[in-house]
């Protein structure tokens, strides 16, 4: 029905503009909240208003609300009770908690996602919302065919043909149906009945290692949260030991009483399952968590794990006696520093085979393999004298040179003139022609790449600098030879 028609029927109709993005955010929030029941939560891709492509939106999208969430609660219901009663308790708990937040919903549980989808939207009696194990064939028989998640044209044809109930399709011969409607309707039917697998793609990849702790009374004090974290960590480290892995990243999530979730994570640079060390890392982060009005559930998960190499740690690494071995606690130190200062601010230096001075040294994460012993020395020995400090980007300087190809006699940097007394050079360093230019193109053949002529100079105050001339001298418009000079580093 269009808005104008509705207004004609009911003149004092209250209208609100639709906010699809706000709806999406709300659904995201609810999906995050549903992590309390299972890590395997997906937002229904066929939900009418939420479907990205309106063509794929299912005809039944408009029934009983547009948005849908799919939860795979396999193996999770025992937390609420044994067997079927646990399943019913979980459903009741879910509806009750959402109702407390003024969110009306219909939740159904069945062996297959398709059956649950249909039941949640079209089941007539409350008791039908929970479908017993392997009971979906009977439960679906009386539901309208809209429950099969079909596209609107197929839907209309079905209705014209008098196929109104899902049960009407059961006795139909399959081959003519496929010829007439394609494979989709029968596939949907098979998925709903469990004859065809239908994987649910979770919103967040569920971590393989996960522990949870629910509280009878909401907690809010920092010490309580730390104590709970410590307990969760102990349980998780035990899981790690059984599986022979160590954590690279750990995430803790606080489920607050108001339904929101606060998360924080820590990272380590090598697989770790040392409870006290991980706890120390968490202690840095726990202050950032906001318990709000209270926390009713905490979940600690390990989204990234790696095979544990603990037995090898005890042996000294002959090749790289530096940080790599990690026996001496430097890796743990690096983790602690990286947590507070940011991972990009704790690095080790690796050497790269390049002629350009600024490309030789690269900062790499601590977890990377360090340069071999003596690699730096060998690289440095092949080249001329290098500065002890290198400017991040060369700074332009004004120079005075008597003879174009000579080192300058005076250079001016940051408003101070340095009279040059001694100079070494030039050391000519050409751009690497085998690398593309900054815009991604390669210089055309036959054109020489730009070169820099480096000079090591000493001013009358004993300061030693590393200067370069960018390209050869060229004649400017006024006939004067010009060249651009830069300061690139400071020598010892």
């Amino acid at each position, binding site marked *: 029905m269009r808005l104008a028609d509705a207004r004609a029927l009911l003149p004092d109709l209250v209208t609100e503009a639709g906010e699809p993005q706000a709806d999406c955010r709300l659904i995201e929030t609810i999906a995050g909240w549903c992590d309390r029941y299972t890590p395997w939560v997906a937002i229904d891709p066929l939900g009418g208003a939420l479907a990205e492509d309106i063509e794929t939106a299912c005809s039944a999208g408009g029934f009983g609300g547009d948005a849908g969430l799919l939860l795979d609660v396999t193996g999770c219901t025992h937390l609420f009770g044994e067997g079927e009663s646990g399943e019913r308790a979980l459903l009741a708990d879910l509806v009750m908690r959402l109702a407390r937040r003024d969110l009306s919903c219909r939740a159904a549980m069945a062996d297959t996602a398709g059956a649950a989808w249909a039941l949640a939207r079209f089941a007539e009696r409350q008791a039908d919302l929970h479908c017993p194990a392997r009971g979906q064939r009977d439960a679906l028989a009386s539901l309208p065919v809209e429950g099969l998640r079909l596209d609107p044209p197929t839907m209309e044809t079905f209705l014209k043909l008098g196929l109104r109930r899902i049960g009407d399709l059961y006795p139909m011969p399959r081959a003519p149906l496929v010829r007439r409607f394609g494979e989709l309707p029968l596939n949907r039917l098979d998925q709903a009945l469990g004859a065809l697998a239908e994987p649910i793609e979770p919103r967040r990849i569920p971590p393989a290692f996960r522990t949870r702790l629910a509280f009878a009374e909401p907690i809010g004090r920092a010490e309580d949260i730390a104590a709970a974290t410590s307990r969760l960590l102990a349980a998780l480290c035990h899981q790690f030991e059984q599986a022979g892995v160590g954590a690279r990243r750990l995430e803790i999530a606080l489920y607050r009483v108001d339904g929101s979730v606060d998360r924080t994570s820590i990272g380590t640079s090598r697989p770790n399952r040392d409870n006290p060390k991980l706890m120390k890392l968490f202690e840095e982060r726990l202050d950032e968590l906001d318990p709000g009005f209270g926390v009713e559930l905490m979940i600690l998960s390990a989204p990234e794990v790696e095979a544990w190499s603990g037995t090898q740690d005890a042996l000294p690494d002959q090749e790289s006696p530096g940080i790599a071995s990690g026996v001496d606690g430097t890796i743990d130190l690096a983790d602690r*520093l990286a947590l507070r*200062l940011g991972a990009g*601010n704790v690095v080790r230096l690796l050497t790269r085979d390049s002629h350009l001075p600024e490309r030789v040294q690269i900062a790499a994460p601590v977890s990377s393999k360090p340069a071999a012993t003596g690699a730096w020395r060998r690289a440095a020995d092949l080249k001329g004298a290098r500065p002890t400090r290198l400017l991040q980007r060369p700074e332009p300087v004004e120079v005075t040179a008597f003879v174009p190809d000579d080192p300058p006699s005076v250079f001016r940097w940051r408003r101070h003139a340095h009279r040059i007394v001694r100079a070494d050079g030039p050391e000519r360093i050409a751009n690497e022609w085998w690398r593309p230019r900054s815009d991604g193109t390669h210089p055309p053949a036959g054109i020489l790449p730009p070169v820099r002529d480096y000079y090591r100079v000493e001013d009358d105050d004993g300061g030693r600098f590393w200067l370069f001339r960018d390209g050869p001298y060229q004649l400017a418009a006024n006939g004067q030879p010009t060249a651009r000079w830069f300061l690139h580093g400071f020598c010892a």
Partner: protein
Amino acid sequence: MPVISPSAFASPDPRAANDLAALVPAALREKVRRLERANSIQRSGKAAAVPVGIPAIDVLLPEGGLLTGALHEIEAGPGPSGRVAPHDGAALGFTAHLLGRFGPGTILWCRRPTGRFDAAPYAPALSAWFDPARLLMVTAQRDEDLFWAMEEGLRCPGIAAVLGETRAADPTAGRRLSLAAEKNGVPALLLRAQPAPPQSVCATRWRVASAASASMPGLTDVGAARWRLELRRNRFGTPSAAETPSWLLEWNDETHCLAVVPQALHGSPSARFQERLVG
């Protein structure tokens, strides 16, 4: 070992009891400190000091070298013209030389980038003094973070030395670093690009300025790097005849050897320059 308890010096006068430092003779306080130091070094099981490598300097230092469990400060000083150089190349070179003496193990290098004109240490040149594969580089945006990172490093058993590059002179942070260094027997070094007011409780404070190098006769090439080194504070060492002992050092880039330039070869840079112009 005699036990000296503070109560032994307590006087009936309550005001004087608070002012313990004034009551105890300086020599006695020094003795107590040395005993404490010897004790803490023994506990850490590390060498008490590492020689700088220059006999003339090592003679003045306690235990014949730089104390491992102590804070050392290196600052860039003014050049011959009296102007502080715009960069601390010489001080950095001397610091790298000192870092190369401590080892083996990881060197924690903490620095605060100085904005747009930031000049980061360049490992190919540093490889002359130590293997840059040993470096763990830490960048901190605030001085508090920098001092915190240094303290954390001092507590770590695998760290050979901790270096902090900062302009901040924070007496409390200096005291904390000094205590952490003493407790763990790991040297802490502070490198300043500018001379700072002497506030912290460092064991040694060095001032390094670049000096004119010596060219080959008749040439104007840059010779081996020369540094004017001053030992401005030497807390536990032997007093020297001069108030601030000073040396002219030469770093030979080819033999990787740091040595004092013999007095006979000294000469003011301007005189040498004149000489060169005439020649």
